[in-house]
């Protein structure tokens, strides 16, 4: 039962509240937190709302990177023209989250801090080498998103810390990319398996550099540097993908759950590579 709600208007106020109340939950969109509270998965007595703190609700674009406040809604990110044109892989991934009203409420910061193995933004963020900026008693620090998330629902955030911003370097304009999400429905679906990919081509239609990241087939987003290395210098064709798919299937760590079996996820994780032919 919530007995206290604060709505700080400045970052200083927010940080003071969090350091003084380390057990208080933070809420931006509430699209995970309120579900957990209603189901009893989380007991929350004190709540700090982040949606009225200017620094956390700003998006800024520079030549080098995109900075998204942790309380910016997914829809605000989607509506941001410069962000969308420079970081189209992120746009593709965010468009698969929930449904229209959920996208008006949910935030990238929340998607990261919830750290679901099925988080839709996460594979793209890992590929794009996103970093999170945290603020707390000891000051500010930046951590790569792939190091910040350590397991299902687990991050390295400290009790006195707040996720303030997400920073994403600008990808090369020549990059080809995609995000595939498999679910039981086209909308309002938690992903069964997902794949974010991005690559650049060199001479003779051969892959110059490639990054692949799978979601929902392990405790966190999975990447396989040795598979990526094996694809560099090769053409994207059926023989390449036929040889790579079983390597992926052997390495993923899916579980059985109400949405899909581990066996299906293992099979489809490799098969999703064929989308690179599109």
């Amino acid at each position, binding site marked *: *039962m*919530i*007995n*206290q*709600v604060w*709505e700080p208007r400045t970052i200083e106020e927010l940080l003071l509240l969090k350091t003084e109340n380390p057990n208080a939950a933070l*809420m931006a*969109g*509430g*699209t995970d937190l*309120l*579900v957990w509270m*209603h*189901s009893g998965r989380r007991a929350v007595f004190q*709540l700090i*709302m982040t*949606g009225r703190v200017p620094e956390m609700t700003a998006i800024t674009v520079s030549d080098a990177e995109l900075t998204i406040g942790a309380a910016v809604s997914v*829809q605000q990110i989607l509506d941001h023209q410069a962000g969308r044109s420079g970081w189209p892989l992120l746009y593709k991934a965010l468009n698969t989250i*929930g*449904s*229209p*009203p*959920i996208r*008006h*409420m949910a935030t990238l910061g929340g998607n990261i801090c919830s750290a679901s193995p099925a988080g839709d933004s996460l594979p793209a963020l890992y590929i794009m080498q996103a970093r999170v900026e945290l603020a707390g008693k000891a000051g500010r620090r930046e951590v790569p998103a792939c190091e910040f998330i350590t397991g299902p629902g687990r991050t390295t955030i400290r009790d006195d810390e707040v996720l303030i911003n997400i920073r994403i370097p600008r990808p090369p304009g020549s990059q080809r990319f995609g995000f595939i999400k498999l679910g039981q429905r*086209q*909308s*309002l679906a938690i992903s069964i398996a997902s794949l974010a990919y991005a690559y650049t081509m060199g001479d003779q239609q051969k892959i110059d550099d490639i990054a692949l990241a799978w979601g929902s087939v392990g405790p966190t987003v999975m990447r396989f540097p040795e598979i990526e290395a094996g694809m560099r210098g090769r053409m994207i064709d059926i023989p390449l993908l036929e040889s790579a798919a079983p390597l992926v299937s052997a390495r993923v760590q899916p579980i059985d759950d109400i949405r899909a079996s581990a066996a299906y996820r293992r099979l489809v994780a490799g098969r999703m590579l064929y989308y690179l032919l599109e």
Partner: protein
Amino acid sequence: MLLKFTLNGKAVEAECPPGMRAVDLLREHFALTGVKEGCSEGECGACSILVGNASRLSCLMLACQLEGQDIVTVEGLQGENGVLHPVQQAFVDQGAVQCGYCSPGMLISALDLLARNPRPSRVQIREGLSGNLCRCTGYQKIIDAVEAASLTMAGDGDD
């Protein structure tokens, strides 16, 4: 806590406990039972309201998030004299209402969609309504109604 916001065009105030959800404030305190609670977890869209021009799920909002906002529920769609909003009229004309439980949420989502995209294709209508579940109609007449409403509102309709 004391909240002040605009509700269906009128300035209102409400006193509520800190953890109260928006859906409960609207239904219990303001008796706006057009806002339905279908699932309590953001998966059905029956609790949809407009906050500013954007649809949101009131079952996943705290009442304090309404503070200072311009809130519209389905009860706020019809005109002062009871004339139905074009989207409501289109639902009636196209037979898009059966049990009616999804209808308030569908109407709110339709308004959100049409505010962003006044001439949506049927594919875009499906995407715009993709957060709302209907167990009765099979969706086709709902899509027909939103399409018809978009034509009426853009001035291309028969009226």
